[in-house]
């Protein structure tokens, strides 16, 4: 191709070409508002978060305790069977120390975020959340953590009813 093709098409623009309207352009901001229905499993999950508890579903066929809960088992392809409360303690499976916020803007104080697999659910089943009461130098994969809940009257039925996961304290396991 390099031998046969002499012209590689494409007219490059700089950020200024675009932002200072050096080329004609049309601007648009969609105003799309959504309400995502939580459905069967997530409605119960959110209600239990408001109660300060984590809930999972069991599948009798594969004998797994599925978390986050779902009404069908994707593996056995059958309805799941029972609601089961699991613990709010778990293990950090992985994490990141983020200097980016949600808009890719730079922030000075990093966000500690990762995946916690929860005690009482099948191995490796967990959720994404923040970590607190630890520094970026202390956090590590394999660390044991526990949910730090908001006070009951501040809870809204959201994953944010957990403020973050923190290291286990003395006597906790």
């Amino acid at each position, binding site marked *: 191709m390099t031998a046969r093709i002499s012209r590689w098409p494409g*007219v490059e*623009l700089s950020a200024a070409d*675009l932002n200072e*309207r050096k*080329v*004609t*352009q*049309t*601007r*648009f*901001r*969609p*105003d*799309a*508002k*959504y*309400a*995502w*229905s*939580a*459905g*069967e499993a*997530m*409605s*119960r999950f*959110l*209600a239990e978060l408001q109660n300060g508890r984590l809930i999972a579903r069991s599948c009798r066929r594969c004998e797994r305790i599925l978390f986050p809960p779902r*009404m*069908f088992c994707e593996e056995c392809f*059958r*309805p*799941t*069977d029972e*609601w089961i409360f699991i613990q709010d303690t778990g293990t950090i499976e992985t994490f990141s120390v983020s200097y980016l916020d949600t808009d890719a803007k730079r922030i000075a104080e990093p966000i500690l975020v990762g995946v916690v697999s929860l005690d009482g659910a099948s191995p490796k089943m967990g959720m994404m959340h923040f970590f607190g009461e630890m520094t970026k130098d202390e956090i590590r994969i394999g660390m044991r953590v526990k949910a730090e809940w908001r006070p009951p009257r501040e809870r809204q*039925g*959201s994953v944010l009813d957990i403020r973050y996961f923190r290291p286990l304290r003395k006597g906790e396991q």
Partner: protein
Amino acid sequence: MTFLDRTTDARKFRHWPGNVEADYIYTSGVAGERFFVALRDEGRMLASRCTACHLDYLPPRMFCEDCFAELTEYLDVPKTGRVAAITAAHIDRTGAQLSHPQVWAFVTFEGIRGGLVHRLLTPPDQARAGTAVRAKLKPRDARTGTIADIEGFEPVRSRF
């Protein structure tokens, strides 16, 4: 087989609200740049020509969708076009009632493939398919190189 557990109390269902936040800047592209610069600076409307297929495209394209040739020849669209179809809008994009119905038209030009969808600047009871129309442009200093540089189309005789 269906779910073994099912909520029957609708008040227990939850939802999570949110917005999709995004701003877009659409460049006009190679053919679009020719079209909008001519419209903004000279008040002209250009079509692009495929000599092989004897086709002129409005809005202009940089390629012929049929024979797939690159198009580089541009020509003026005739001043007068014809209303091919109309509709009267009584609500706006958000569903709010408009104070006066707006007439929208698809305007075509003799010998040209395509056309433009735009406002028809007549009351709804006078709007007819088949009417000869001309573009009414915004004043030069209000034009920015978008399709809104055209205010709309008005019947030819109303200009006299």
